[in-house]
């Protein structure tokens, strides 16, 4: 009898381990996303993908509907070719547009899909034509500095002629 109860308790021990492993794999890791429902594939070309990574989420209205499966450089157009899988249950009009967005100021980048108004839906292997690249902070800062410099330059050139005019143009 003592032997039996030892074996039962070891069984309980192993069972607990299996339950914990299932919990870790399904609830606290990405195993559930492998066995997810059927998905279809769409492509999109971006001028600049920024920091987008493989497995980044694809969202529409903030709701996760799929993920990025591959990112390559299109050799002909020199654009980033992003292939993503979208859950079968979610259908988008064929003229939907894709944007690369950032979750919060320092968050990860994801693909946001904005639905269009076409009657037909995107099919497996379709290309999303309207895209908007990631916002690159360096370019923004560069643009800001360039604008400031242009302002200052025009102001400097106008200064000898009439100081009042340049201040007037700034207003």
């Amino acid at each position, binding site marked *: 009898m003592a*032997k039996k109860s*030892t*074996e039962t*308790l*070891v069984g*309980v*021990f*192993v069972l*607990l*381990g299996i339950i*914990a*492993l299932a*919990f*870790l*794999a399904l*609830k*606290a*890791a*990405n*195993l*559930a*996303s*492998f066995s997810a429902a059927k998905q279809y594939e769409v492509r999109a070309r971006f001028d600049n993908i920024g920091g987008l990574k493989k*497995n980044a*989420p694809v969202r529409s209205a903030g709701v*996760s509907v799929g993920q990025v499966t591959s990112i390559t450089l299109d050799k002909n157009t020199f654009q980033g070719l992003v292939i993503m899988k979208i859950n079968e249950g979610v259908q988008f009009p064929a003229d939907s547009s894709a944007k690369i967005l950032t979750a*919060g100021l*320092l968050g990860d980048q994801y693909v946001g899909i904005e639905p269009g108004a076409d009657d037909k839906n995107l099919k497996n292997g379709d290309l999303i034509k309207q895209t908007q690249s990631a916002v690159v902070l360096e370019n923004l800062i560069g643009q800001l500095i360039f604008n400031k410099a242009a302002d200052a330059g025009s102001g400097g050139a106008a200064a000898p002629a009439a100081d009042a005019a340049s201040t007037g143009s700034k207003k």
Partner: protein
Amino acid sequence: MIELVNALGQATLRAVTSLGHGAFFFVDLLRFLPGSLRRFGLVVAQIYMIGYRSLTLILAAGLAVGCVLALQMYYALVPFGAVESLGLVVNLSLVRELGPVVTALLFAGRAGTALTAEIGLMKAGEQLSAMELMAVDPRGRVLAPRFLAGIFSMPILAILYSAVGILGAWFIAVQLIGVDPASFWSSMQGKVDVFRDVGNGIVKAGVFGVICTGIALYQGYETQATPEGVAYATTRTVVYSSLAVLATDFILTAMMFSTS
């Protein structure tokens, strides 16, 4: 001066000899493993002693560490507005590092010492010699089932430790502090890979199981057959196991997670 050099030489020789001795012991033990699989009842009894009886300690430690980790990480993440990655931080630290390492340290203290003391006392009571007289190799009959049970129990304990830790973190973060439960879980599901993170954590735990159980058995088997000798051997089990686990952990981490 010459005595100093002499002492250095002696110490080096002793270290190398005991290392070689340990390696031979380990290889012998591996040779006996298939045989002990055939007497699985012995292994099951040892899993009960080593694994099941360690549950309380491991679960309590996992719960406590998970709760504390959640609390501390919450305070650290709030200024950055990054509370939604709380679950991810807790999960990765538990699954990758704390789970296997802390479990191994506790395991060395809870089960390793028990193994060393048990086998040391068997040796002191000349039970091992008695077995040899009956043409039963104690390494096959006594050591191998314990070794196997240790290797088997360690990963299970580490998984339970991580799982309970995450549940503890969930309780503190979601139930008490009020972190959004959806982002708590989805940050994990998005970033934690089953094979790279959870799988490597389990591999680590298995390696630590081999190290801890192997050292404990070796210390017990090679102990001086006196009460004092057993006491020393028990101490050495904890010290050597802990140091070996920490050193191995660093190497394994560098190998497993270098390219993320």
